[in-house]
């Protein structure tokens, strides 16, 4: 005999998609059904509630930089499995499927481009590549972007979208935090200007390194930004987390981001900031 019977089905796990296929998409924020083409024209921001859809590094490049101005550098850099890391899957297999699915080599692209004719060094992470995780490749590319901006005396912009350090590279992933921070320190000491853009999500090892070391921090609306993951905190303290915890507004109120900027105004904001600091 069954004593307790589930009246309604249990938790339904929905696979979140970056951008569902088909002509129409449903907004994760308000449930509005939006015509995909219209969404693209609106910078992948919901036309009704301003929910910011997760977008790819390619989308950020076309949204924030002048058309065809982006020159990617270090595009062939790839991760290697130096630890023979294996969990439920082997690391090389994870890498292979991520490369196949995304067409990217790793979770960041760097290069130089222009914002309203002004040259900048630009790095953009891609959450779709193993959760935007930072291993050797991300660390090295960020470091090189910083060095490039330093040599050319250009403003540096990095768009973060990441769950943190990549476990499959263990301690070496952790060391990328020190690597990127130390390069930024030298860049800053020499007067370099760095804008960090924090998108949904930007957490853990990246928040505790280059994402929080900008001269200016810009968050996209509604982005999850924090060091410890909400689930870990919830487990540790054994109580529910307040509404809006670790979201952009929370970070603004606590003084860790300078402004929250809608994706549609992001490029013009960058342009104004760069002019202020470089004119």
């Amino acid at each position, binding site marked *: 005999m069954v004593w307790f019977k589930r009246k309604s089905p249990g938790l339904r796990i929905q696979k979140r998609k970056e951008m569902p296929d088909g002509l129409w998409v449903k907004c994760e924020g308000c449930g509005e059904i939006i015509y995909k083409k219209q969404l693209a024209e609106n910078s992948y921001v919901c036309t009704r509630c301003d929910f910011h859809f997760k977008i790819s590094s390619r989308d950020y490049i076309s949204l924030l930089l002048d058309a065809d101005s982006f020159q990617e550098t270090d595009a062939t850099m790839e991760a290697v499995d130096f630890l023979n890391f294996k969990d439920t899957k082997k690391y090389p297999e994870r890498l292979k499927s991520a490369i196949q699915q995304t067409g990217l080599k790793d979770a960041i692209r760097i290069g130089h481009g222009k914002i309203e004719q002004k040259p900048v060094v630009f790095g953009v992470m891609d959450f779709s590549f193993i959760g935007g995780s930072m291993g050797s490749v991300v660390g090295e590319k960020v470091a090189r972007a910083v060095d490039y901006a330093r040599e050319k005396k250009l403003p540096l912009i990095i768009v973060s979208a990441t769950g943190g350090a990549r*476990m499959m590279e*263990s301690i070496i992933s952790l060391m990328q935090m020190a690597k990127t921070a130390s390069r930024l320190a030298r860049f800053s000491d020499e007067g370099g200007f760095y804008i960090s853009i924090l998108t949904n999500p930007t957490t853990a090892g990246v928040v505790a*390194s280059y994402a929080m070391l900008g001269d200016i921090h810009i968050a996209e609306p509604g982005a999850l930004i924090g060091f410890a993951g909400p689930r870990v905190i919830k487990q540790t303290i054994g109580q529910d987390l307040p509404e809006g915890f670790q979201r952009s507004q929370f970070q603004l109120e606590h003084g860790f981001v300078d402004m929250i900027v809608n994706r549609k105004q992001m490029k013009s904001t960058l342009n104004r900031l760069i002019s202020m600091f470089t004119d």
Partner: protein
Amino acid sequence: MGEIVLDFERPIVELEKKITEMKAYAVEENVELADEIKRLETRLYRLMQDTYSKLNRWQRVQLARHPNRPYTLDYVERIFTDFIEIHGDRQFADDPALVAGLARLNGEPVVVLGQQKGRTTKEKLYRNFGMMNPEGYRKALRVMKLAAKFKKPVVILIDTPGAYPGIGAEERGQGEAIARNLFEMSHLPVPIIIVIIGEGASGGALGIGVGDRILMMENAWYSVISPEACAAILWRDSTKGVLAAEALKLTAGDLIELGVIDEVIQEPVGGAQRAYDEAARKVKEHIVKNLDSIRDIPPAVLIENRINKYGKMGFFKE
């Protein structure tokens, strides 16, 4: 200190007990057992050598967490003299999970920092199990800036299960506090010696762990994530810590091969918890030797070397 025995230590502890009993019996009954005792002692020595040289990674994690393992203040009182503790980040609070102060190392004034764990329940809570809050990282930074101002070397002992994951910690910017320390420590114009004495968990450890020489005790661990947390994410089962520890390659032996640390500090056979004085003497030797090797490097070169040190860490193909 109460007797705490790890699984793999049980045969050793039983043999030790037998020897003690036999010695007592020999005295009490006035019988000649010297040969027998000697035989058992040889056996014990071999058993210990054998057990501790073959520890797997998870067993080393257990040793690093041994409740009797010496903590930061146990080392501070044995390595330094005239320790003067100082408190607070001058912004929000004092964080007891981090001890900081001025002390003398063979007579020379230095700045000392380290995460502190508690031994009794009350102490554990007071020290927050060695898990720092943002004010702890900011306190560390404040003290390191003091060192820079007065041109004193910095010695840092690391022993933490992680940065504290709490609501208040997030409100006060745990991520920013750690990031700031990495940034500031990488261009601090004085020598920094880091010693991982127990647990080195992730950003919580690295947040006070950027330096010129990174030393690590034989039975310490240092990783991007604790084995249990890693297991919970990748295996979806936090009891798979054994597997995660192997996969993460988190021991001193692993890290020296990977070029992350500079030296491994040998521990007394059986682990530092068996001989505090001996362990502390070894740690001191390594600190002094390494400090001597970088003391006279001009600050600008020291900083450049430090940035390059971390610059070399990473494996990729192009």
